[in-house]
């Protein structure tokens, strides 16, 4: 009975303790590597932020208009801080990967490998979305101003339609990059885009019928224009 107890309970427990004891050096090494990485990343972040600031990166980004793009995308940090943060996070992730690999756990390694292979897609998708957002805002505003200056009564609608369409395109590309329902996203986009175009066509066709009539009448009847020479 005792023998059975020993084989059923004690031995697995001893094995478990034995494995933990064997695993401890790896775990401590991994933890150490992770902490060193964390500390290094923090130091690099601080040093890099100061160096970039002294080098005039923030001023350069102001002059080039990059700072404006960053602000418009909702990011409040200046470029030097932004770069140093990104570099620090890359370092942290790298050290986490090294730390995990030191643990020698096959299942975790496989999971990590898949995650690492997928990570660039997430990164690229995020960049596509950020640029898409900035670009959508920019083109939406350009369309709004152009439509206002052309005397359009639906300028706001035009501006929003352009902004929405550009962001939708970037969202589709980002999702495709992530491999999420490639076909579905494409079809959904085509359907949605077609719908938007049809809705706009109907809106302009029905809502703008009077406007078009008024415009044509002005052209045909020769409405008095302005002769002012502005310059």
């Amino acid at each position, binding site marked *: 009975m005792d023998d059975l107890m020993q084989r059923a309970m004690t031995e697995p427990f001893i094995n478990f303790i034995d494995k933990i004891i064997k695993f401890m050096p790896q775990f401590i090494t991994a933890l150490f590597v992770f902490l060193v990485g964390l500390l290094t990343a923090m130091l690099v972040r601080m040093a890099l932020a100061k160096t970039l600031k002294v080098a005039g990166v923030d001023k350069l980004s*102001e002059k080039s*208009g990059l*700072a*404006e793009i960053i602000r418009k995308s909702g990011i409040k940090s200046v470029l030097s801080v932004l770069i140093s943060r990104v570099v620090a996070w890359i370092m942290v992730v790298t050290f986490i990967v090294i730390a995990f690999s030191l643990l020698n756990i096959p299942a975790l390694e496989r999971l990590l490998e898949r995650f690492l292979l997928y990570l660039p897609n997430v990164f690229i998708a995020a960049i596509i979305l950020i640029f898409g957002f900035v670009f959508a805002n*920019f083109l939406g*505003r*350009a369309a*709004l*101003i*152009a439509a*206002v*200056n052309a*005397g*359009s*009564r639906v*300028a*706001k609608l035009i*501006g929003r339609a352009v902004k929405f369409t550009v962001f939708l395109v970037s969202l589709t590309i980002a999702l495709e990059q992530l491999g999420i329902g490639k076909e579905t996203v494409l079809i959904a986009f085509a359907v949605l885009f077609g719908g938007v175009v049809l809705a706009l066509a109907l809106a302009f066709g029905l809502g703008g019928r009077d406007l078009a009539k008024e415009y044509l009448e002005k052209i045909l009847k020769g*409405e*008095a*224009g*302005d*002769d*002012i*020479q*502005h*310059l």
Partner: protein
Amino acid sequence: MAEYLRGVEDKIAAIKEADILIGIPSYNNARTIGHVVRAVRAGLAKYFPDQKAVLVNSDGGSTDGTRDVVLNTESDNLQSIFTYHRVGPVYSIAIPYHGIPGKGSAFRTIFAIADKLNVKACAVVDSDLRSITPEWIELLIKPVLQGDFDYVTPLYHRHKYDGTITNSIIYTMTRALYGKRVRQPIGGDFGFSGELARFYLAKDVWETDVARFGIDIWMTTTAIANNFRVCQSYLGAKIHDAKDPGADLSAMLYQVVSATFDLMETYSGVWSKINSSEPVTTFGFQYAVGLEPVVVNIGRMLEKFRLGVRDLLEIWQGFLPSSVMLFLAETQNQPDDKFNFPDEIWVETIYSFALAYHNKVISREHLLKSLTPLYIGRTASFVIETRDSDANEVEERIERLCNIFETKKSLLVDNWQEKGGKHG
């Protein structure tokens, strides 16, 4: 020899030196340039018969034979006009300019030829002028040759509703900023000394927007800000070939205002120290000219203004002072005949746009194109206000606006350094 003088080296070498150079920039102006060339030749024959003169046509690649017209246009039978003959011929050079397409590049070629020929005085005149007379050449050249001036700006007799960008923004701002009352800073027809031509040529701007557009305000501002002696000459009416009716007002406004605002960056150290203005010497006999009536559609202008206020208020909110925002909100319900855009509000608006441009609050092109409805509103207000005014009363009205630009200049000076700030 410089790349942009390719093809005319031999001609320049043959001419060697000259006293006067008249430059005519062109692009597909075959229809009108003949008259301009004849007027220039007659002016040189009548007023400068003893001076060695060169006529330079700097062309932007015309396909309608503009350069042939220049080279083949002879003076009218001058014997029937004058009792004397020129001592020497007027040399003609017709050259396609190189570099970025634009009036600025055309002028650079003219400056370069003036430099090579070591001329004493130059003038540039538009190629689409219908009202140019031989006297224009005298009035643009003589102040330089005999009056010791470096830069001669034109003074035209214009319809009270013409030149509204000049009257409401460019003249008023240039005067307030640089302290010289140059009435037509972007007139297009200028006289200048050989020394100033060399100064312009040496500036590192020929690969920038100056080469494309804004050369007129650049020349005027550069001359004033660098203490060259400036004067103006009364040339009479300025009538030129009908412009393209579809020309985009917002693009025009963007080009001329951005050129003015860009120069504010270059010369901030100059204008920030100036707090008053002085008149400049004026040449020429001023007389009234019969002008074509100008048709203005106030209703449509106000409609465009109100549409702009309704849809662009969000964009302006970031940089226009509360006084202007309040005024704009109130205008939505104002009846057309009572519509008024006060001078003070207009000056605050323009200075706020200048600061927003400096601080790059949004894309500069978007910013200035969003000014269009406000400019249209201000112009409509001006037309309503001056409906029954004569030319002198309108000039007094513009003078009042200039004074407000000068009085409120501290708004600009005090806030210039505060990047991204909102004032008011």
